[in-house]
């Protein structure tokens, strides 16, 4: 009997266009499934008008097993597909061609929640899996669960939000009423209702969604997949060279990886650096790897540039990087810093730090606190507080020998290929439910 599965992996973007965490995680999973002999199709939404073929939303990337789907969504409030024919005609047509056994949504954003329901409408036996990548269904503020900052007060640090409710959400958005938020939640939950299993990459995120109203039994915690098979081998081979790199460096190398925006706490990090004495600062080399500053508010850009000027010599801004560059960049790093001022879920940078065996200094909240154990695989500081982060940087500076101990511990905590097997097990167990249902139908027929 053929054990290979027909899987449809749906993503709101393709890593070719936008290398966000969810896009990368979904693409890796698709690649791993293919490598393992399963018939996986990667269904990625895009908004590139240049790539549209006349009269169809579909297109290709040139690689087998991948399909592009043009869709835009002007209304980000309730994630509804504005063009319903995309759902009942085009997406349905695709389902009838591919005939998947499992459809795994990595997002509904820019696609429309209706796609999820359409799978159920098309064929009730198809298993539907949805990975929750941030808190978008719960929070209209880009799914960050932080209070929205008044535009008139750009200097204010956004406050963390612990729970959504129609009235508290409407206070963040002056143009939306509590009733609007009530309808938003009802609409999202109605479409979520057909999902067989939700996947949360962190326990913290799972808890937030359970509090919001998803039944606990419907959420499974599985870490994002980072590795294809080949890469794991490569990492093991490279381990030796990474250690050598650390030996030859006399400065403490700190690094930030990721988008530069206010949620990622880059200002907290820069302020912490400024709190250090000049002598200490001279023993540190901080590199900021990432882009996106130009898309931030004028005020935020000025703030960051001001800090850069003051930290001249100890901070370098490196810009965007490719995944090929990452191993050597990680190899040159003693500590990765994750200073986010929002909860995070399962940051890709922490996963990568684990993979390359680099210990982490991070905020003590949400997904970061969950993925890094203080005193074991990294150091926690009080989120959003620069003096607390400065203290931890100082600790790393004064305890340089500890770095190796932490590095080996974090390396051991890496989940590697486990997430792939957990996903596969989940798919298979869901499909077994179908078989069981079919069997019980047969039994009923016999007894009748």
């Amino acid at each position, binding site marked *: 009997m053929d054990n290979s599965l027909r899987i449809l992996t749906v993503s709101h973007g393709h890593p070719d266009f936008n290398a966000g965490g969810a896009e990368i995680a979904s693409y890796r999973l698709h690649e791993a499934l293919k490598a393992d002999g399963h018939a996986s199709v990667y269904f990625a939404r895009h908004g590139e008008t240049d790539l549209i073929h006349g009269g169809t939303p579909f297109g290709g990337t040139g690689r087998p097993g991948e399909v592009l789907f043009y869709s835009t969504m002007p209304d980000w409030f309730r994630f509804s597909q504005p063009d319903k024919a995309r759902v*009942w005609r085009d997406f349905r047509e695709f389902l009838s061609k591919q005939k998947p056994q499992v459809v795994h949504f990595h997002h509904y954003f820019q696609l429309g929640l209706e796609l999820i329901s359409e799978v159920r*409408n098309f064929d009730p036996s198809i298993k539907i899996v949805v990975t929750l990548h941030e808190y978008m269904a719960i929070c209209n503020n880009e799914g960050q669960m932080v209070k929205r900052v008044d535009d008139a007060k750009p200097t204010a640090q956004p406050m963390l939000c612990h729970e959504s409710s129609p*009235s508290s959400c409407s206070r963040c958005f002056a143009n939306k009423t509590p009733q609007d938020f009530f309808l938003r939640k*009802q*609409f999202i939950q109605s479409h979520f209702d057909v999902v067989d299993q939700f996947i949360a990459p962190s326990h913290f995120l799972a808890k937030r969604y359970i509090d919001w109203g998803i039944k606990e039994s419907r959420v499974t915690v599985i870490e994002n997949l980072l590795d294809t098979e080949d890469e794991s081998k490569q990492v093991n081979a490279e381990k030796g060279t990474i250690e050598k790199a650390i030996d030859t460096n006399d400065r403490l190398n700190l690094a930030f990886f990721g988008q530069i925006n206010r949620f990622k706490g880059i200002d907290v990090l820069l302020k912490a650096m400024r709190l250090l004495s000049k002598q200490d600062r001279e023993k540190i080399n901080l590199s900021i790897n990432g882009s996106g500053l130009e898309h931030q508010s004028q005020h935020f850009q000025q703030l960051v540039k001001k800090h850069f000027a003051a930290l001249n010599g100890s901070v370098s801004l490196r810009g965007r990087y490719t995944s090929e560059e990452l191993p050597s960049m990680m190899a040159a790093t003693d500590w990765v810093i994750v200073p986010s001022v929002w909860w995070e879920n399962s940051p890709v940078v922490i996963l990568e730090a684990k993979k390359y065996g680099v210990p982490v200094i991070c905020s003590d909240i949400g997904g970061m606190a969950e993925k890094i154990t203080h005193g074991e695989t990294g150091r926690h500081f009080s989120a959003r507080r620069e003096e607390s982060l400065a203290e931890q940087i100082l600790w790393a500076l004064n305890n340089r020998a500890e770095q190796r101990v932490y590095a080996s511990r974090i390396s051991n905590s890496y989940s590697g290929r486990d997430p792939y097997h957990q996903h596969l097990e989940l798919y298979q167990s869901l499909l077994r439910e179908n078989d069981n249902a079919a069997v019980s139908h047969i039994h009923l027929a016999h007894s009748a």
Partner: protein
Amino acid sequence: MGSLNKKAYRRIKKLVGEQRSRRWNIAARRAAFRLKIRPSVKPKHVVHIAGQGVYVSGNIIDLKGKLTGLELLLDDGQCLDLMPNMVRFSSNTLFGISARGPNQLPAGFSVYAKYPKDGNTSCEPVGLRLRLRNGKVIDQKLTWTDSNNQPLQHVQKILAKVPAESDAKRDMFDTLFGPAVQAIWQSRDVQWPTVEEQHYNKQLAIAEPDVSIIVPIYGRYDFIEYQLSSFIRDPDMGRHELIYVIDDPRLLAEVRMSCDALSRIYPIPFRVLFLERNMGYAGANNIGVSHARGVNVLLLNSDVMPAAPGWLRLMLDTVGDSLATSITGARLLYEDSTVQHDGMKFFASPFMNDLWTNIHPGKGMPLDVFHDEASLVPREAVTGACLLMTRENYTSLQGLNEQYILGDFEDSDLCLAARRQGLTVQLAPAVQLFHLERLSQSLVAADRWKQEVTYFNCWQHHGKWHSDIVSMKQETQLEVAYG
């Protein structure tokens, strides 16, 4: 400006330019003199309500108090005295100066005169007769518009005359505004419009539904999608039928396209009635029920969303055997889980000159302070936002009363009519739905004339049901005045 003033103005204008200052003075004096000696009546808004009466509103310029009588001349030769029921208002006439005579009466007037009930019922007004102190009689022609030509605009114009705050407001409604507006509204064309029916996902519909759910739509129609996305997760909905009544001709094309798409995303059967003319809340519901096939009907607002699946089954089971002898409401909640509706009481409101109004005891209070004595509790009235009864009862009560303007009091009218027929009015507290009240209310601009429409509806409701309410209050020994 009346014709006399225009004449004076023309003369002044003609003379301006030649020996301006002197002549101007003379002309102005002459004009003023002529005004002083001769009273004039300038009707501005005259509405003929066929077989009912006539409403006349305008200005009376009578600086010397010479006018002693004003009569309406009918085409059959009869005269109607307009003086007894006339209401005077201050009104800016004459170059912005309010004209007052020696009797200090303001210039503006409005009056409603009923045509004689006996004799010719198809009479029409032809003129006005002014009677002066010196015995002289002046007849003038009168032009009018028919009340059936844009009845709502006439109502709007008439109610704009209602003084903002007045102790005499209720009296003015008794003699003038009430009967005039009532006559216009009752004699408007109430022919049902052409109805186009679309049946979506018909193959999934059942032949004999338990309940026909009637949802009128006006203005916002995105609620249809919210309701469908809620109902589709409720297996019990398969036992009922869902009828949307699109009571907004502006939306027909949009809604038709939207419903086609929605029916493919949400595979549950629903019917949509497209009305080519706006009928108002009561009319839309009545048309909806006339298309219903269920044993029972449930009136439902579009902004009402069930709190849990199985709500309608629970409602039917709770009402049980009393279905045929009752009207039943549900407990409605705000989105913050406080109570939006737990039944209504009649209250003689001091803010409405002691007219009976509907109040909502318990509104806004958290659900956990309610302690329910039974699964069905008696109420004086329940809201039409969610109301269950048998179709037979609805039909024998002739449905919702279409004589209220723009949706008000129809539900309590229905409850009172039901009581008169011996039905029980009750509420099932365990049946809970969310009612996003603010969203639908904000669709109607909260301007002055809307307040007066409410007053009119209240006045009409009071006149019809006052004695019933008083005897009900006595029977049930509930307090007559609330609080």
